[in-house]
C-alpha cells in the first residue's frame, strides 16, 4: 500500500527524469553546427521563460503539499528559480550566438552587452511611454512587485487597476491620460455634482500616483541598465585576463554583485528617496480620498464608517490612559511611594559635564553564579484588555 509520501516520491522521480530529458534536448541544441532557432524551443516552449516555466508549474503543485512553515520559503525559492533560469536562458542564447560568431571579438562583446541590456530592460514593451514595471521589475520581479501588492491591499477598487488600465506591456497610455483629462475638465453640474467632483478628484489623484510610480519605476530601470553595463565590463575583463566564468552559479553571483553595485549607485542619489517618498505620498493621498468616498457611501447606508471607528478607538484609548494614571496613583499610595515629581526634568536642565573613561572593550569571563536573590514573585497579574 502506498501513502501520499510514496506517491510524491514517485512523482518526483518521474519529474526529475523528464527534466533531464528536457534539458538533454536543449543540450543537443548546443552542439556545434546546431543553430539556435530563435524563439523555437523543444516541446513547444519558447522565448524567455522556456527553462523556468516547466519547473514553475511542477513546483507550484508541490508547494501545496508542503507544511505551512515551508510554503512561504518555497514560494520565494521558486521566484528565485525563475530569475535564475531566465538569466541562464538569456546568457545561453547570447553565448550560443557567440559560438558561431565569425567577426571580431570586440564586435561580439559589444553584441553581448547589447543583448544583455535588452534582456534587462524588458525588451518587447513597445509603448511610447516607458513601462514603470519593465527592466528592473520584470527581469527580477522584486521590490516593485512587493510594492504593488501593498498598494492594492487598502483599495476598495480592484487591486490590479493600474495594470488593467495600461495596454499590454506598456505604461499608462497617452490615450488613457487624455481620456481622464477630458473627464476632469467636465464641469460638475446638477444633483450629483458633489459626487462628480469627488470622482474627478479621485481621477486626478490617481493620475498623480500613476505618474509618481512611473517616475520611480524609471529610476529603478536605470539599475538594470547600469547592472548590465557593469556585468559586461566584468565579463570582458575576465576574458582579457583569460579567466572564464566557472558556471551558471558564478555568472549569477557576478550578476548579483553588479546589481547591488548599480542599485547602491542609484540609491545614493537624491532622486531615490525623493521619488520613492513621492510615490508613497501620492498613493496615500489617493487612498485617503477613496476612504472619504467610501465613508460617504457607508453613511448613506447607515453603516459605521472608518471615521467613527477611529473616534471610538481614540476615546477608548483616552479612557485607558486616564484609568492607567489612576491605577498608578492608587498603587503609589498603597505602596507608600511618594508621587513626587521624578528627577528627569531637573536633570534635563542641568547637563552634567562628565569625564568618562575611554571606551573599554573588556571581555571578562563570567563570574561564578551569584547568591540567590530574595524573590517575591507575584501571582500573574493582568491590566487592560488583551
Amino acid at each position, binding site marked *: 500500500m502506498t501513502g501520499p509520501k510514496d506517491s*510524491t*516520491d514517485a512523482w518526483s522521480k518521474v519529474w526529475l527524469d523528464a527534466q533531464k530529458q528536457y*534539458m538533454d534536448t*536543449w543540450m543537443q541544441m*548546443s*552542439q556545434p553546427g546546431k543553430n539556435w532557432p530563435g524563439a523555437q524551443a523543444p516541446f513547444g516552449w519558447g522565448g524567455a521563460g522556456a527553462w523556468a516555466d516547466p519547473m514553475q508549474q511542477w*513546483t507550484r503543485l508541490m*508547494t501545496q503539499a508542503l*507544511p505551512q*512553515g515551508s510554503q512561504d*520559503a518555497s514560494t*520565494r*525559492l*521558486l*521566484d*528565485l*528559480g525563475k530569475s535564475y533560469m531566465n538569466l541562464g536562458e538569456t546568457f*545561453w542564447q547570447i*553565448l550560443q550566438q557567440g559560438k558561431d560568431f565569425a567577426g571580431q*571579438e570586440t564586435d*561580439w562583446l559589444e553584441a553581448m552587452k547589447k543583448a544583455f541590456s535588452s534582456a534587462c530592460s524588458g525588451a518587447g514593451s513597445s509603448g511610447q511611454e516607458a513601462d514603470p514595471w519593465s527592466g528592473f521589475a520584470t527581469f*527580477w520581479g522584486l*521590490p516593485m512587485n512587493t510594492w504593488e*501588492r*501593498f498598494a492594492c491591499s*487598502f483599495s476598495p477598487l480592484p487591486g490590479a487597476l493600474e495594470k488593467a488600465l495600461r495596454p499590454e506591456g506598456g505604461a499608462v497610455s497617452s490615450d488613457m491620460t487624455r481620456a481622464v483629462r477630458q473627464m476632469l475638465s467636465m464641469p460638475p453640474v446638477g444633483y450629483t455634482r458633489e459626487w462628480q467632483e469627488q470622482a474627478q478628484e479621485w481621477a486626478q489623484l490617481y493620475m498623480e500616483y500613476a505618474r509618481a510610480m512611473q517616475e520611480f519605476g524609471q529610476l529603478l530601470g536605470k539599475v538594470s541598465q547600469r547592472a548590465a553595463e557593469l556585468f559586461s565590463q566584468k565579463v570582458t575583463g575576465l*576574458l582579457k585576463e583569460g579567466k*572564464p*566564468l566557472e*558556471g551558471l552559479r558564478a555568472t*549569477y553571483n557576478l550578476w*548579483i554583485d553588479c*546589481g547591488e553595485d548599480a542599485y547602491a549607485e542609484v*540609491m545614493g542619489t537624491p532622486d531615490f528617496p525623493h521619488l520613492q517618498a513621492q510615490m*508613497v505620498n501620492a498613493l496615500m493621498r489617493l487612498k*485617503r480620498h477613496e476612504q472619504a468616498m467610501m465613508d460617504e457611501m457607508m453613511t448613506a447606508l447607515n453603516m459605521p464608517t472608518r471615521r467613527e471607528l*477611529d473616534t471610538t*478607538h481614540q476615546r477608548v*484609548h483616552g479612557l485607558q*490612559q486616564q484609568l492607567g494614571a489612576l491605577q498608578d496613583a492608587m498603587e503609589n499610595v498603597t505602596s507608600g511611594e511618594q508621587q513626587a515629581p*521624578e*528627577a*528627569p526634568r531637573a*536633570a*534635563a536642565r542641568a547637563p*552634567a559635564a*562628565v569625564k568618562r*573613561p575611554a571606551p573599554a*572593550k573588556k*571581555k*571578562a569571563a*563570567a563570574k561564578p*553564579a*551569584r547568591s540567590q*536573590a*530574595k*524573590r517575591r*514573585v*507575584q501571582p500573574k497579574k493582568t*491590566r487592560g484588555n488583551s
Partner: protein
Amino acid sequence: MMQLPLQPDQILKDALDFNQKISRGMLTLRDVGDVEVGVTPKEAVYREDKLVLYRYKPTVDKPAKTPLLIVYALVNRPYMTDLQEDRSIVRNLLDHGEDVYLIDWGYPDGADRFLDLNDYINRYIHHCVQHICKAHGLRKINLLGICQGGTFSLCYTALHAERVANLVTMVTPVDFHTSRNVLSDWARELDVDLLVDTVGNVPGELLNWSFLSLKPFRLTGQKYADMTDILDDPKKLRNFLRMEKWIFDSPDQAGEAFREFIKYFYQQNRLVTGGLEIGGRGVSLKQVTVPVLNVYATEDHLVPPESSIALEQHVGTRDYTAIAFPGGHIGIYVSGRSQKEVPPAIASWLQERSN
C-alpha cells in the same frame, strides 16, 4: 574560434543541476515540517493589553540578584533573541547567571491604532519594570534594549532613572542623521501624518518592503540561490526556515507610535538635537546617568554604527563602555561568534557593576 566566457553546454548542465536540486529540495522541505522558535523555557508573569512579560527559567542555582529586562523593537518579533537552542542570546545570558525577563509586544490591531510612545515607554515598559521590581523586592533593575527597543530604553531610563540600575543597548539608533543611514534618508520626505491618517496601523509588509529594498538583489535573490546548497541538509534547512519565519513575521505598527517615532526620531532627530517630549515630559540623553554598555555591529546596514556610537557624545553617564561587534544587524543575534562573545560580555559587564 571566438573565446567565450562560458560554454553554452556548461550553462545547460548547471541549469539542469539547479532544477534537480530544487526538485529534490522540495521533498526535504516537505519532510522538515514546521519549525519552532523561542526554545528556552519561560513563564508569562504579567499581561497588559496585548503585551506579555515573560520570565525565563534560570539555568544556574543562584542567578543575579538584579534581573535583566530585555526590551525588543516593535518591528519584528522578540524570539530572535531565542531563535534556537544554539543561537540564543537569552539562553547564553541565563547560562552566565542572569535572571532574564523579556517583553513580547504582541501584534497590534485596529483597536491599538492610538497607542503612542507614551503608552509604550511610560506605561508598558514602566509597568513591566514595576512588576519585576515588586516581584524581587528591588527598586531598580537592569535593562537590555535592542534596536528600536534600545532607543525606547534610553528614553525610559531618562524618564525613570530611579528604576534602572544599568543599561545595555544593542544595535541601537541614537543619532538618526548620520551619513549612510539609508532608512533615515528614505523617511525624510515621507508624509507620515498622511500615511498614518490613511492606513491607521502601519502594515508590517510595508516595513518589510523597506528592509528588503535596502539590498534587493541579495535579500530577495541570492539568499535563495544559497538556500539551494542546503536543501539536502534538514538541520541547516531548519535553521534557514527559522530565520525566514522571523524575517517575514512583521507585526503591524500601532499608528500613533509609528507617527511619533518617524517624526521625532527619523525626521527631526530630537534624541540628539533636543526637544523630545514623551507623555508631556522632556527627554534628554543627559538624564541617562546610570552605567551604559553600548554594543553595536560594525557592518550594520539597518542601524549604521555611527548612529549608535553617537551615544557616547550625548549620554550623561560617567560610566560608558562600548563594544564593537564585527558583524551585521542580524549576525549580532545569531552568529556563532556573537553567541561566544556578546552575551558573556554583557553578563560580565553587569556582574562588574552588581552590588
